[in-house]
């Protein structure tokens, strides 16, 4: 998927942009819906990345002991 090719930083920047749009601009309800869906999706992707990284580090820590 397109967002999975983006880096973590790029994804965070996109989330921040969506939130800014929701807060400052005057979208209609449908658009808000889409924005929220998109943002939630992106947040979940980031959370997944973080979880995976945490697991990797934990594995390394176990192996070096």
């Amino acid at each position, binding site marked *: 998927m397109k967002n999975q090719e983006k880096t973590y930083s790029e994804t*965070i920047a996109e989330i921040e942009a969506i939130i800014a749009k*929701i807060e400052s601009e005057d979208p209609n309800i449908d658009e808000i*819906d889409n924005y929220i869906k998109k943002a939630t999706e992106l947040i979940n992707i980031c*959370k997944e990345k973080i979880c995976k990284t945490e697991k990797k*580090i934990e594995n390394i820590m176990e192996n070096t002991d």
Partner: protein
Amino acid sequence: MDTISLFELQTAIKNGINSLFSGKYNIVAEINEIKTNSSGHCYMELVEQDEKSNTPKAKCNAQIWAYTYRMLKPYFETETGRQLESGMKILVSAKVNYHEIYGLSLNIVDIDPTFTIGEIELKRRKTIQKLIEDGVFDINRELEFPILPLNIAVISSETAAGYQDFINQLFDNKYNFNFKTTLFPAIMQGRESESSILNVVDKIYAEIENFDVIAIIRGGGSASDLACFDNYNLAFALAQIPKPIISGIGHDKDISIVDMIANQMQKTPTAAAEFLVDCVAQQYYFLEELSRNLVNNAKIKLQNARLELNNLTIRMKNEAGKKIEKQKNMLELFFSHKFFPITLSKLSKEKMKLDLFQKQIEISNPKNILCKGYAIITKNGKRIKSASEAKSGNCVEITFKNGRKSATIK
């Protein structure tokens, strides 16, 4: 005029001489010529040379009758080691004799060998002195004898036993050294030896650079045979040869003048050959030892180098091992105390940030407001935020939590 016959004259002279010179006289003279006839009588021409001009100032015939000569000859030869020969100074006891036909002569009845020995020795000493004064006595001995005397010019006679002994000793040497000899044949005794040897000396000069040494070789012989090696001209010429001379002139007692001027003197031809072989052998052993030392030294050096290398390798492994261990410990510390904690902390912060985003979205979501019973009024898709924007007669849309309705502002 009174005349007298020749015979009468000769007889008168004879008588006169006989009466005047009746006894024996001890006479010193030099033999100019000497010969023996078939009857055993010895005939000589005696001469006295003027020392300055070297020309005869007196001459006389002499004879030793066979019965006397038979005794005198061996006696003289035994005592002096030499034969009566021309050029020899002798002291004789003789009677003056005058013959009508043969004229004046001396009849030798005895001879003193010690005088001749003395004369020979005197002549030798004079020869040596002259060679010293001419500055040539020592010059050949001052030349450096080569360490490898392999190319030899040999002055000798091919038929002489001494020459064969020399060659055999040289070429049958036990080390199989390769000598190269060039024979310059010469007459090695007698009156002709001087000119013969001087002649070959000239020939040697023409090829002198081909040789390391010059060998003068002849076998043993009587003092007469070896007399030529006391000759001044021979010694003078040989001394000046620019290559070292080795003499192998077989002699029992006295050494000759040629022996004295030679760079190396050996008693016999065999000894001369042995000397040459020993020279080369010495160098051979020296080189062998050098090469042995070289090999040993190289072995020791290699061994030391190997040991050093081993030590260095062990040190290197130890040091490298220590360094690697240190680095490993540092890395472990880094990871356990810095990297992991910092990374996990960062990730944790990111999670909190994401949670915050989530909350922000929820707060910003208008649907949450609608669920609380509020409605959103829009006109042409745009939200009406104040009463002043709602004009009478405007068609608006009201969005509720569960749907939408259209309405007109009154």
